[in-house]
Every structure is written in C-alpha cells, then in structure tokens.
C-alpha cells in the first residue's frame, strides 16, 4: 500500500519539479537571438528516439566539422514532447532539433515551440514528399514547421498459410474482409482476423483517414472539428458491427495476450503500417515466413486509398540559436540519398522521401523473405495516402478515443461505437472552446 503512496509522491514531486520549472514562464517565447557568423563552429543538440539515429548522424558529423550534431536519446514521442513543452515554457533547456510525430505539430506550433522554416533551404524539399505528408508539416498554410522523416502507410498483413488452408482469397474490399473474418472465426472459434483496439488512437485515425476523414481543419480564423462525420462514422459503425457479431476480437493490441495470439495463429491478420515487420519479428518471431502483406481492403475498389499510422518529422525549436544550420542538417538527414539509405538500414524506418524509399528499399525485410515484392506493395500504398489535418488538441481527442472506445469495445455493440464517435467530437470541441480557440 505504501508503495502506491510512494508512487503518488514521486508523481507529485515530478509534477512539482515540472511546475517549478514552469515558474519562469513569461517573456521567454519567440525565436532566440541568431548566431550569424558563418565560420563559427556550431553545436546542435537533437532530441530523438528513432533507434540508432546517432549512427546516421555520425555520417553527418564526419563530413561537417563546422556543424556538430549531438543526438540526445529520448524515451519516445510523448515524453519528448512533454519535455520540450516544459522547456519552452521555462524559456530555456530546449534542444535545437526535435523528432516530432505529425500529430504533435499543431500542439507544438500552438505553444510557439517550432520555428517556421519557410525561409530556409528546407523549403526546397517540397517535391521530395507525397502531398499528404507535406501538408501535415505546413498545416496547409505558407509556413513550414518541420521536414518529414518517416511515414507509416497502412497495409493489410495476414497469415498466408492459414488463408490457404481455409481456401480464402485475400480481401480487397471491406465487405470481403468482413466475410473472411466470419469464415475464420467459424472455422476456429478462438481465431480472429483482427481485433479492434481501443488503445491505439493512431490506428483508428489511419483507418478514418483511409475512408476520407480529416478531423481538424482551418476555416479562415477558426478551427473546425470534423470527427463525427460520415467517413469516421462509417468506419466506427463497420467495426462496431463486426465486434457486435463477434467475428472480430475486442481486446487491445500490444498486450501479452495479443502477442501470444499472433504467435499461435489465433490472430490471423493485422491492419498495420509499413513498420509492422519489426513488430511482428519482435512479438511473433516464430511465425517468420508465414505472413504476407497486401494493400488495405478498400471502401471503393475503384479509388484505392490508405491511411497513415505513425511517422515523424524533424523540427527546429524556437530556442535554437542556429536555425539555418539546423535546417541544413534536417534537410540532409531526410532527403540526401546517403542519409535516407542509412535511416532505412540502421534505424529501420520507412522514409517519407519518395525517391529515397524507392532506391533504399529493394530487398524485403527478413521477416518477409517469402515475399520479394514486399516494398512494391508498401510503395504503392504510400502513394495513396490522403491528406489529414491534425489540430491543436490531438492529445485530448486521442485520450477521448481511448476512454470512449474502451467502453464501446467492452459493450460490443454497433450503437456504442457510434456514440463513442460523438463523444470524441464533443470532448474535442469543448476542450478547444474552453481554452479560447475560435471553433466553427
């Protein structure tokens, strides 16, 4: 008992420390004074969590003795952003560069944490990236807040051996997916083609994106929130129906139980993203060679589309004294052939850079050595990722997703799924209004 008291105490002390750090909030916003001497040796710090990123950065440091970059390894997307926001509030302590997930960019811009790179050479990289990805670093405007690094175009992963055993064809539409789910579950009551996970808001966002949703929008001088609209309702209703029938599981992903089910063939498929091979190899290593990848099932077979799950960018913070040098590095890291090649091979990411993805990704990942055209499938999917706008309170909407869809998944009813979409919309709008944002 006392341990939970202590845990609480630690949390309170951490909170207190954070608050004390926030004490000096005030005039510390806006860009730092710029270092303009071009010959001066520049030291840049870079907060990032992609695996082995420091090895990629070593390539840069070897060639650029005047701009030295130090990678400061972070725990992950959320903690790094929390730390950055704290440092921005405090007026000091932020790095020059930060790895920022796409959905965090509006929050960071709202907190005045990111420098507009529109006047730097980073602006020239526009044609390197798919339009949808570029849109998420510009927020659809003239400014440029980050250089895209990696993306997670979604695809359908399935156990080819089990599909073959049941004589099933790979589903190309969502109707076929539902039928396949039923066949699989009827054949083995413990087996499911997939699960609806209330833990993974990013996953659901990607599926809504595929259906044509874009949850936030800028409408003149006001934000609009478009969660409870046709595309998202269609997706939620579809999954709610499958969960209600019981042909799709309702347990969260990334649990020991889910891992066990992937290993034992009780989870027969996974709607995931380009980075799935790494997760599958780690969580279900014994099943190597039994999986295949296919494009996502479609709502409209004539207009193939997919969503994006995950991915991040390289941004420059408002506390950087060397914005030009930082922008130069960010451009090199995400668009130069050698860096993109290293990112693919050493950090195992799927690069946002279209050309880089083509040349660097030739051989299929080891886990998918049975499918030589692995990256052809993914590459085609990447071309079909639509635009999706994030807003300044993605955290609130995602948190509402966790809580509301957990309830709905537990209730196992289609109507509960639709109610969850409405609650998400309501919570998100109320939070924006409460803070004072103009909402249309």
């Amino acid at each position, binding site marked *: 008992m006392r341990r939970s*008291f202590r845990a609480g105490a630690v949390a309170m002390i951490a909170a207190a420390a954070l608050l*004390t750090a926030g004490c000096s909030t005030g005039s510390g916003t806006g860009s730092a004074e710029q270092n303009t001497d071009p010959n001066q040796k520049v030291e840049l710090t870079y907060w990032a969590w992609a695996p082995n990123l420091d090895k990629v950065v070593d390539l840069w440091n070897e060639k650029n003795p005047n701009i030295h970059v130090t990678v400061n390894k972070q725990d992950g997307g959320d903690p790094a952003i929390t730390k950055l*926001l704290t440092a921005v509030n405090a007026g000091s302590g932020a790095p020059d560069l930060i790895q920022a997930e796409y959905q965090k960019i509006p929050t960071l811009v709202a907190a005045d944490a990111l420098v507009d790179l529109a006047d730097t050479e980073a602006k020239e990289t526009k044609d390197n990236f798919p339009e949808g990805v570029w849109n998420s670093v510009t927020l659809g405007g003239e400014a440029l807040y980050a250089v895209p690094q990696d993306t997670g175009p979604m695809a359908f992963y399935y156990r080819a051996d089990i599909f073959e055993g049941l004589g099933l064809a790979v589903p190309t539409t969502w109707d076929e997916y539902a039928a396949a789910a039923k066949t699989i579950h009827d054949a083995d009551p413990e087996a499911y083609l997939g699960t609806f996970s209330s833990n993974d808001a990013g996953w659901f966002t990607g599926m809504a994106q595929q259906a044509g949703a874009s949850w936030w929008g800028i409408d003149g001088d006001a934000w609009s929130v478009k969660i409870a609209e046709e595309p998202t309702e269609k997706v939620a209703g579809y999954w709610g129906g499958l969960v209600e029938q019981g042909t799709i599981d309702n347990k969260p992903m990334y649990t*020991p139980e889910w891992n066990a089910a992937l290993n034992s063939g009780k989870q027969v498929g996974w709607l995931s993203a380009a980075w799935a091979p790494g997760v599958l190899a780690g969580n279900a290593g014994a099943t190597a060679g039994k999986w295949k990848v296919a494009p996502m099932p479609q709502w409209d077979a004539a207009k193939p589309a997919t969503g994006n799950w995950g991915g991040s960018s390289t941004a420059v913070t408002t506390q950087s004294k060397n914005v030009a040098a930082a922008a130069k590095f960010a451009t090199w890291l995400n668009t130069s052939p050698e860096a993109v090649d290293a990112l693919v091979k050493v950090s195992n990411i799927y690069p946002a850079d279209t050309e880089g993805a083509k040349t660097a990704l030739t051989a299929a990942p080891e886990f998918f050595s049975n499918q030589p055209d692995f990256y052809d499938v993914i590459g085609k999917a990447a071309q079909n990722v639509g635009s999706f706008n994030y807003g300044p309170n993605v955290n609130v909407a995602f*948190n509402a997703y966790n809580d509301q869809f957990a309830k709905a998944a537990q209730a196992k009813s289609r109507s509960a799924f639709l109610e969850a979409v409405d609650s998400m919309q309501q919570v998100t709008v109320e939070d924006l209004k409460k*803070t004072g944002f103009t909402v249309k």
Partner: protein
Amino acid sequence: MAATATMPGSAEKTAAPGRPRQAKNFKQRVLTPYAMLAPGIVLFLLFMAAPIIYTLVLSFQQKKVSGLGLGKGAQSTVFAGFDNYVRSLTDPEFGASVLRVLTYGAILIPLMLGFALLFALLLDSRRTRAGSFSRTAIFLPYAVPAVISSLLWGFLYLPGVSPFHFVADKLGIALPSLLNPDLIIFAIANIALWGGVGFNMIVMYTSLKAVPQEIYEAAKLDGASEIQTALRIKIPIIAPSVVMTALFSMIATLQVFAEPTTLRPLANSLSTSWSPLMLVYRDAFTRNDVYSAAATSIVIALATFAISFLFLRVVQKRAFGQEN
C-alpha cells in the same frame, strides 16, 4: 510513538534551566537549535511549501488563446478565479473516480488489515514454527515495486496467457476474466493486498513484540487460552498501531495510481480517469492542462486531510484512550 516524538524537545528543556542567562546563552539556546533545524526547514520550504504554494497559484490560472492560437503571442495565462475548482468539483468523471476509490478502499482496507492482524498474531503465538521465514515470505511482496507487481498480476489475469485459466480450461471450468468491468476493482485490490499485507503485518507484529511478557504470563496463570489472550489482550494493546495502519492505508487508497495505470492497456475496462490521481495525471500530462490538474490536486489534498482528521477524531479516543 508519542514518547519518541517528544524526545528532542524534552531534552532541550532539561538542559536549559539552571543555567545563568548570559549573552552567550542566546547562541546556545536559540541559534544552535535553529542552525540544526535549518536543513530540515530549508528542505521543507523548497520541496513541500514552495510546490504547494505554486500549485495553489496555478490552480487559479488558466490558459487562454485567441483565434487559431498558432504562433507567437497567441497564448497567454490569465487569472481564472474559482473556474478550475468549479469545473473540477462538478466534473462527473471526478465524482465517479472518487466513488470508485471509496468502493476500492471499502474492499481493500478491511481485508488487508484483517490479514495483517491475523498473520501478526499467528507469528506472535507461542506455537509458531519457522517464524522468521514466514515473516520474510509475507513481507517480501512489499519489496516489489507496484508497477512490477501489477505487470506480474496482469499476466496472471489475462485469460490468453494466464496459467490459472489454462488449468481451469483443462478441467473444464469456465473462469470469469478478472479484467471484466465488474471484477476489475477486485483485480486491483488484490494486487494492493498482495503488496500491502506484509508491511502492515510488520508494523503490528513489532508492536506486539513490545508488549511485556509478564502480561501474558498473568493471563496464562488466569487460565486464558491463546485465542482469548489474542482477542482480549493483544488486540486491545496494539489498537493504536492498527489505527495508524488504517490511516496510512486510507491515504494510500485515495492515492491509488500505479496499479490501475499499469493494468489499463491490458483491457477495455479501465478509463484514464479511473482514480482521482489518474485524472490529475491525465489532465496535466495527456491534456497539457496543468491548471485544472492543480485545482483537482488541491481538492484531493484537502479531502484526504479532512478524512484523516475525521477518522482520527472518531477512533482516537477509543484507541489511545488507555495510553493517556
């Protein structure tokens, strides 16, 4: 307990009288004790008082943005009056979380203290074998951090990987999953029980050891059985430490955080506002709204204080009555 707390003060009192009042005594009588207290006072001010005051300040502020809220100067911090408090107290999620921890406490505390008392009495009984081994074994779970024990129990609860469910399946018994919404509160209470019994047992056992042996001999001569000795002598004598453990347990219950937070990703039955502290954490770190979180924290702190105070008022007379 009370005796040890007054020790330093009484030592000073006995040293001071009888000495001539001289200038140099000012140093001895005033400066020296304060110099000795200084580290404590400084630490208290820095790490208790300052954060509390700062939390109070924050709780009366809120973030205000205008228009799209993007870029420089679009956000500012303004005075909020009691807005945060009103929102916190009228938030149905907060009310629900308080109700949940009260239920949780009603399940957990009697069980935990009951087991702790039972084990302490068993260990103290004359016929105990392997006493120190049992004591260590019961105490050991307390040394496992709550996050680890929650992960461990989480594995045991998940039907897909649990050995209990595996065995039950083989025997043809259908076990209900403890992670279902109706049972999850017991699942969490069980983790806290597993970790907390040992600590409370040690507290009670230690105070049992402090009881003079003559009392037991007298009881034995009067023909009291082991059970009678336990019920009529041991329990009344250690009542103050039972009260203390109850108080600590109540405070810890209101602050339950690690167990539900660790179990949450494993199932659909826990929300991110399951307990009051989880709600505070969510507001501060997931929703980036430290101001609401500060107000809720103050409310929780005041409520905890009020409950502890009331509890002590009610039971103090009975428990500590014979000491004074």
